[in-house]
């Protein structure tokens, strides 16, 4: 009754091509943004920011990056934490060695460096695909793990191999409280989501999707595989590099070698699977799910009052995690984003059944 496109006529091409064609969607989005920018910083506690909201925002960015590659271009990667590591260490070294750089500049440069590495590890995708590529990306994961743990220059010769970052300051504005960090992250995420949204509906996104659906056919109709695949790798690594830099600077503050290990890569993959492949909204859902799940699983024994040792609890949460992934794959292979769009379809017709 309330949510429908009746009577909203498009009288120009611009109106026809807008991102949210339905007025109610635009209102909802405006409300959501207002809520995120104004209400959340006022009401959320520091604990909530640090343990839930800030990691969610960063991982959502990384999940969008991975989704560009896996969901839109169809190239599987189980080594994307490697690009996050590249971004984090690039940002660390840039901030350390060129201290006068603005943090945002550092971020973009770190992203660009990650993109270059992404192109390098994307080259095999021109010859191999599917599951073979998955193993090739594992090479990126393990090589980067090793590189940052062993080459002392990257960690500024710190004896333990762990690095810590300076507080983030831009033009006199310091991101020192959790709420300020949140605002910084949110701003970055909104901008990059907009960019990603426009990428995937422009010619480049369509080339990616054509590669994903059938690469040989895409080549026949004139899409250059080299260009499509390598841009997907580059942009995906760019997003993950920025997410990695944020993860290091804003969330962790200081990190050990192997902070960006295979587990993080797999978690990113789970995010886009559970959220929905080939959906930006799904990246958000997936990131929220994966960030919130362990926290909730940890709390359950406390609520129920069952005394479980922490080791057992972590094993149990592993089990539940694995079980849920399989469950999701079987019940809703298109992820939470599909549930959302089904809900929207239903809402359009509500309260009538057809």
């Amino acid at each position: 009754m309330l949510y429908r496109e009746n009577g909203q006529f498009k009288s120009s091409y611009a109106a026809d091509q807008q991102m949210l064609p339905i007025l109610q969607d635009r209102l909802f989005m405006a409300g959501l943004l207002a809520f995120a920018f104004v209400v959340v910083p006022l009401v959320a506690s520091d604990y909530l920011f640090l343990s839930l909201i800030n990691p969610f925002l960063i991982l959502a960015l990384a999940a969008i990056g991975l989704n560009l590659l896996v969901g839109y271009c169809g190239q599987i990667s189980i080594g994307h934490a490697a690009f996050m590591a590249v971004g984090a260490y690039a940002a660390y070294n840039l901030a350390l060695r060129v201290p006068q750089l603005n943090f945002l500049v550092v971020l973009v440069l770190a992203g660009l460096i990650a993109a270059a590495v992404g192109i390098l590890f994307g080259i095999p995708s021109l010859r191999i695909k599917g599951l073979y590529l998955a193993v090739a990306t594992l090479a990126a994961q393990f090589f980067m793990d090793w590189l940052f743990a062993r080459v002392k220059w990257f960690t500024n010769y710190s004896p333990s191999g762990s690095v810590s970052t300076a507080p983030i300051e831009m033009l006199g504005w310091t991101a020192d409280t959790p709420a300020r960090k949140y605002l910084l992250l949110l701003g970055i995420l909104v901008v990059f989501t907009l960019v990603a949204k426009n990428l995937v509906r422009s010619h480049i996104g369509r080339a990616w999707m054509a590669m994903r659906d059938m690469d040989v056919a895409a080549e026949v109709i004139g899409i250059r595989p080299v260009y499509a695949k390598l841009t997907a790798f580059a942009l995906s690594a760019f997003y993950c590099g920025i997410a990695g830099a944020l993860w290091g600077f804003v969330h962790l503050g200081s990190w050990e070698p192997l902070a960006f290990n295979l587990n993080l890569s797999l978690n990113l993959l789970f995010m886009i699977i559970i959220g929905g492949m080939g959906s930006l909204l799904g990246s958000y859902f997936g990131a929220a799910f994966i960030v919130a799940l362990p926290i909730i699983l940890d709390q359950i024994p406390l609520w129920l009052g069952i005394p479980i040792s922490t080791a057992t609890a972590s094993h149990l949460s592993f089990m539940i995690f694995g079980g849920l992934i399989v469950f999701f794959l079987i019940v809703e292979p298109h992820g939470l984003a599909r549930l959302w769009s089904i809900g929207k379809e239903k809402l359009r017709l509500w309260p009538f059944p057809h």
Partner: protein
Amino acid sequence: MKKNWSVYLLGATLLVGLVLPLATGASPVGFYIEVLLGGLMTGVLYSLVALGFALIFKASGVFNFAQGAMVLFAALAVARLAEAMPLWVAIVLATGIMVVLAWLIERLVLRPLVNQEGVALLMATLGVTYFLDGFGQTVWGSDIYKIDLGIAKEPVMILERLFEGGILVNKEDFVAALVAAALVAGLVLFFQKTATGRALRAVADDHQAAQSVGIPLNRIWVIIWAVAGFVALVAGVIWGSQLGVQFSLSQVALKALPVVILGGFTSIAGAIVGGLIIGVGEKMAEVFLGPVLVKAFDLAGGGIENWFAYVLALLFLLVRPEGLFGEKHIDRV
């Protein structure tokens, strides 16, 4: 015929790398052979894990990420059961457990996902990996356990007269290699000579054709998972007896992935040869190339065997995407 010069080039580089430490006299002959044998030994273990992997991929097209978790689970089961009963009973019991587990995985995870694309199946096995890791440690405990095969662990010095210093070998290593060889021989016999084995090969070649001549696909898949579970058990017992049973076992088993890449996904011979190449290659790289790198780039320690296998597989993929023994794949629109 197309010249595969890039393959030859890669092979020649590897060969030169292999011979170089010996040729330049950088290492004593005895030590060199020890490293070689150690690499072969690790290679046998990689082969065993890769074998289970290749079996499942061949028969059902599932990229089974959970093979490492199955190895860990089987090893944990044997180690803990052996505390209460004789080893052979524990192994028999654990085999039973692995078969039940295989049946459950096929029934609960893969059958509902039949006809999904490869990625979804890979994810499902990732889920199974997490589940098995958690489940195994919940049921069996998460400490480090020992599997004692009752073989002397003291290294034996052989060929002392031939080389200076002789060669240190482990008796257990030889037993492990023998077991692996017996397992492979048994599998080959099973696949070539029994009716079930023929059915398995038929399914591997063409699911639909196999089904249309009356081969029950579901049962075949249970069998193949059970066989893979058994292979995982053997691998787990041997690894467990050498390294101790602990969580890292499931991580080390990830090395089976570059092995199957190198050997070709669907080939049993490829899994064996690939395992040996990777095992020897990474050991050699660690021992002989590692110190050179550390010196040249001032690294904080070697550890290049963590990535060497993957990068080797990656290079190999670039020049020969189908692997050593894999079938050439032709894409059509």
